């Protein structure tokens, strides 16, 4: 580091220095840009879906196009935004910083997984051009083995590559956390975001290969006809559901655990209070990771699996509520009597808590057999799913605001950040609470047509979706404004005590000239606010 203004953004110049970079910070930013592009695309599909549903019957698109829209909305949101969002974009940037390391353990592998990701994403988007896939994001057989459906193979290949990208990122994170912790940083001195990422990485390692082989089998089934899933050749289509959910149930925690890690950071730092019961939060991440492998059957209560299997899966499903609730109560206890500043990240953290509580509790409704059978494949499931997945997006945006000063070296408009959050969350409630009501009244999912009595509720839901989009555009506006006109950010604008706040904003190429001494990452009493630099400085 020759000059104080030398940071990772200015260290080397030129497009090639970005595309071939081995710097985890730049790779994180490349992920961020790619993922936000996918988010925009999938968001546009969502708005098209909601526009189509303004009236019963055909509004703007045909039934077939509608099927493709919801498939692509789901597949792109899940595989290109929610799964990689926090680990690959924010995690890549923040993990080595929080470890006090100079990079992840395998920088080349990191770049390789980014290009796998880009290639996989491109293949998925290509399928839109080829003709669209309408199997639903779950690729259930026999829809997906039906030869008449074009474009299934590129999407499957895309997801297969994305899976391996995710596996390699997880592998990198596991090894980094094991081997690159700063001297003196024991396991229980890591920021909780790292625990979230660690538990996620374990699941990526254990579950994603199973998705890989499942998709591979599906591709081979389509190309060669091996008769593993195709009942016409002696295969078993339900086996696909088992395989798929063996990955995809843990996958929802692959999505949620990093979000929970982010929330642990946001809640503690912006309440200026030590996290309540660190070890319980850390272990509950691991507990969720373990439990999540034994509950996949709750997606298949009506698939014809035995009543005994249903009961066991139902009972196990309830067990996931325990570590989840442990986390929620610990966050509330952290906020209790803290010096809460309602910064934009904190607003998003509170929004996460409120949305995820509803998402989690309706998960319990769905985990109980009788209710589940009643509302299977209705909008109730759709609403529950969005009440659990959108909070992940909320945590992602909150985390982006939280680390934005570190990433870009600039502050954003708190006022407009808060307004964007409020509009988004209000819109979300309108969109999906109406869907809970419709679901309990029997509105089936994945249908472009509906009975006229649902019209008012559907239109309310669509209006809410528009508000969500508005909120997101306001948030995007704050980020763009910050890049152009934002005030320079201090090294530690929030008063956090973890390592990433102890290097300049933006960080230099090597992150730390000297690794800072490892201490309690949540002991923020040493830091005091200096208004002239709009940031915190360690007390001398």
């Amino acid at each position: 580091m020759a000059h104080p203004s030398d940071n990772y953004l200015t260290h080397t110049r030129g497009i090639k220095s970005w595309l071939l970079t081995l710097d985890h910070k730049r790779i994180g930013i490349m992920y961020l840009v790619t993922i936000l592009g996918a988010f925009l695309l999938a968001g546009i599909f969502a708005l098209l879906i909601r526009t189509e549903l303004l009236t019963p019957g055909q509004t703007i698109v045909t039934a077939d196009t509608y099927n493709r829209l919801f498939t692509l909305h789901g597949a792109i949101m899940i595989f290109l935004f929610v799964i990689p969002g926090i680990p690959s974009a924010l995690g890549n940037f923040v993990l080595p910083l929080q470890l006090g390391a100079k990079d992840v353990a395998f920088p080349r592998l990191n770049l390789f997984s980014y290009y796998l990701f880009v290639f996989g994403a491109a293949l998925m988007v290509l399928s839109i051009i080829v003709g669209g896939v309408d199997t639903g994001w779950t690729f259930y057989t026999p829809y997906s083995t039906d030869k008449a459906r074009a474009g299934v193979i590129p999407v499957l290949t895309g997801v297969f590559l994305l899976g391996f990208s995710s596996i390699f990122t997880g592998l990198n994170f596991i090894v980094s956390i094991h081997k690159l912790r700063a001297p003196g940083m024991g396991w229980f001195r890591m920021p909780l975001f790292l625990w979230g990422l660690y538990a996620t990485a374990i699941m990526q390692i254990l579950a994603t290969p199973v998705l890989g082989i499942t998709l591979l089998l599906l591709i081979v089934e389509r190309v060669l006809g091996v008769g593993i899933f195709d009942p016409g050749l002696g295969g078993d289509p339900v086996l696909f559901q088992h395989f798929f959910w063996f990955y995809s149930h843990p996958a929802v925690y692959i999505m949620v655990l990093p979000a929970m890690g982010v929330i642990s950071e946001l809640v503690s730092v912006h309440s200026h209070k030590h996290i309540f019961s660190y070890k319980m939060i850390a272990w509950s991440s691991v507990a969720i990771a373990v439990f999540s492998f034994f509950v996949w059957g709750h997606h298949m209560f009506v698939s014809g699996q035995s009543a005994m299997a249903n009961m066991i899966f139902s009972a196990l499903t309830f067990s996931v509520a325990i570590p989840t609730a442990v986390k929620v109560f610990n966050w509330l206890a952290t906020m209790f009597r803290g010096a809460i500043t309602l910064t934009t990240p904190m607003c998003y953290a509170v929004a996460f808590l409120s949305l995820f509580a509803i998402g989690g509790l309706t998960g319990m409704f769905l985990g109980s057999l009788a209710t589940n059978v009643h509302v299977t494949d209705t909008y109730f499931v759709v609403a529950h799913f969005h009440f659990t997945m959108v909070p992940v997006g909320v945590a992602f945006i909150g985390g982006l605001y939280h680390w934005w000063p570190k990433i870009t070296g600039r502050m954003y408009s708190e006022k407009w950040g808060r307004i964007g959050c409020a509009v988004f969350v209000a819109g979300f409630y309108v969109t999906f609470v109406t869907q809970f009501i419709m679901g309990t009244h029997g509105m089936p999912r994945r249908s472009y047509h509906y009975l006229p009595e649902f019209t008012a509720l559907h239109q309310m839901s669509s209006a809410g979706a528009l508000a969500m989009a508005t909120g997101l555009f306001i948030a995007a506006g704050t980020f763009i404004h910050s890049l152009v006109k934002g005030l320079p950010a201090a090294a530690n604008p929030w008063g956090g005590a973890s390592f990433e706040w102890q290097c300049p904003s933006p960080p230099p190429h090597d992150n730390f000239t000297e690794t800072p001494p490892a201490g309690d990452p949540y002991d923020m009493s040493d830091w005091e606010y200096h208004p002239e630099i709009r940031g915190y400085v360690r007390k001398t």
Partner: protein
Amino acid sequence: MSREDPRVPHHFESAEQQTESARLGMWVFLATEILLFGGLFCAYSVYRANHPDVFYYGTQFLDKHLGALNTMVLICSSFTMAWAVRCAQLGERRALMVLLSMTLLCAALFLGVKAIEYRQKWKHGLLWARKFRAEALERSPTKAGATWAETASAKTTMAAPDGQPTSGPAASNPLTTGTKALAATAAFEDRTSIPPAGTAPAGVVSGKKSSAAKPSERTPPENVQVFFSIYFLLTGLHGLHVIAGMLAIGWILRRARRGEFSSGNFLAVDLVGLYWHLVDIIWIYLFPLLYLIH
């Protein structure tokens, strides 16, 4: 080694930290590989549990001798690989190169034997479900198959002169309704015909077995083509891993020729060795699971 060692990337404190990280990374990667195969092993277990007769029957058409030969070949290659790692540790370049070449040779031999097996299957139409030719079951592609064919024709009249299955005395036994099933399997060749509902498989967790009968080696059971699908999937995926392993061994052989390894720097040999042992050990499971079913 000191921090100043130029071979150690900037983000590692020491070569030791780098070695430890790389080894951990490799072990984690091997775990994902096992899980990748795990999906297929799981499919194998589910179908074998639900349709044991298919597996008892199908296994006779695999050549145990060639399978055993390949097992020997791979065990030898694991031995030469382990020895190669030891030579790398001791910095014996010549021995390292010879042993790596021998490992490559074993791998090539394995693929050659596998190719012979695949060719036999291809010739007889004992292929995955869509390509499967049911009349292949009446021939005797392997020794085991021959025994079956002889005994079968001695005991029952399974096949009429025109090759069409007819009901022999065995069909009167309600537990061995194989001839009917054979007709049904024959229909699969023509993908336009939809199989009778009775041949559709039971749900995975429904606990219903396709046949309560004691598995028979004599009569072709329903859906016997699934056995060959699983055979080709498992051995095919394994074969791809053998090829990947050969590429990796070729890469370190090239590096060894350039003298890049020394007793202080043999990490790559070590990691490729780990990978190769995984490829071998998967075969050690595949061989009994596919060839030695009783």
